[in-house]
């Protein structure tokens, strides 16, 4: 029995926003896979919940006329992992989605919840960072759209204003078309685990032998998910070979803000960033149709 004093089911987005603005004490629940566990551990006192579960408009995954892909914030990890639009357009996100938890959790957990909780180990985050995802937020005052990088403010802190709801995650075509990508979740177990490090690498090539753009998103490498901008800048225009990839791995570490915890040491995390960035990028290059010169 969870300490839930009040529970309301919103039928539409408008209704949810209305409720939320009239009662600032409401907590949002969707899949519940994070919130209920917090309640179980006594991290929250008695709560009043506003459920978004019935809002069909937030559950849609679609490709828009301009080629951008919209993911409703209420989409579950199972839906994202199995959706043809995601699998074909942004397979790196499908890969990340399927690395999360286990099947029963993926059937419940929503991507919106994963993002709004602001945890640095969120499985969706490195890929969404690498995809330059835009978050659409709705409140009584209207809608705003911000890049996901700006949404994460600190550990457990996100730029979600009072009365605001995350409605949609948007990936524009310039951020996925002609890119190859790869997500590596490094964890102690192959399922039901929290990432020790998450690395998402995407790249677009000039021809098959030169890097056009490279993007590297990391999870659990700092207080928030982050991008390795130094390494990305370094890569532009460089030859696709073993040396470049190794250098990118090294530089990627400079963007990280790893620390030692009982789960892993700073030294080990940094070593993993260097190594796994290379591995993720290597796969991403192949998926982008590139050929790596190891000579």
């Amino acid at each position, binding site marked *: *029995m*969870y*300490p*839930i*004093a*009040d*529970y309301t*089911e919103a039928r539409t987005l408008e209704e949810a926003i209305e409720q939320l603005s009239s009662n600032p004490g409401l907590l949002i629940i969707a899949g*519940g*896979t994070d919130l*209920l*566990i917090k309640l*179980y*551990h006594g991290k929250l006192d008695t709560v009043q*919940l506003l*459920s978004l*579960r019935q809002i069909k408009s937030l559950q849609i995954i679609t490709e828009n006329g301009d080629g951008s892909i919209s993911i409703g914030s209420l989409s579950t990890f199972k839906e994202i992992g199995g959706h043809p639009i995601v699998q074909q357009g942004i397979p790196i996100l499908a890969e990340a989605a399927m690395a999360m*938890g*286990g*099947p*029963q*959790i993926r*059937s*419940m957990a929503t991507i919106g919840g994963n993002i709004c909780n602001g945890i640095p180990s969120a499985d969706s985050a490195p890929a969404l960072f690498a995809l330059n995802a835009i978050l659409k937020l709705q409140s009584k005052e209207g809608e705003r759209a911000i890049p996901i990088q700006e949404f994460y403010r600190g550990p457990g802190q996100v730029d979600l204003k009072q009365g605001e709801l995350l409605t949609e995650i948007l990936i524009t075509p310039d951020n996925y078309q002609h890119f190859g990508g790869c997500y590596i979740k490094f964890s102690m177990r*192959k*399922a*039901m685990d929290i990432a020790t490090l998450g690395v998402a690498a995407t790249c677009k090539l000039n021809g098959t032998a030169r890097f056009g753009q490279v993007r590297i998103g990391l999870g659990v490498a700092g207080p928030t998910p982050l991008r390795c901008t130094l390494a990305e800048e370094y890569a532009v225009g460089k030859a696709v070979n073993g040396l470049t990839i190794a250098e990118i791995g090294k530089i990627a570490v400079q963007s990280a803000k790893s620390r030692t915890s009982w789960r892993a040491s700073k030294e080990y995390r940094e070593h993993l960033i260097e190594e796994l960035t290379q591995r993720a990028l290597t796969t991403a290059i192949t998926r982008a149709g590139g050929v790596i010169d190891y000579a």
Partner: protein
Amino acid sequence: MLKEISFTINGKKETMTINAGETLLEVLRERLHLTGAKKGCEVGECGACAVLVDGTAINSCIYLAVWADGREIVSIEGIAKGGLPSKLQEAFIAEGAIQCGYCTPGFVISATSMVESGKCYSKEDVKQGLAGHLCRCTGYQNIIRAVMKTLEQ
């Protein structure tokens, strides 16, 4: 806060007034005395409490009972039909997939959703599909065999 909910459980309609904080697991076990779904961790890590909600396996310990409103729930008690075990359950028995039995209902639930999906599954797919369940007795070996055997039939 009290809520009235109606749902189907193993083919039977139920309507009841529940507390908003109650989990589906609590409703099944304490109100309906369907104790086949087990409590192992209470946070969705072990899968012992899995049931089918509209055909999808979920962990009922982190599933609010209010969410069951209007849905079709199948618990382990609803898998055997007319007192006869399903093909999958027979395979669990025949392949020695059961030891202490505490995790068994959860595994059967998730595997049933696979078997009934009509899709093709490789051994790796079966393992992926069962990865949300922990078992400490069997090393999973005979569970995989039982599910594979059923899928091959």
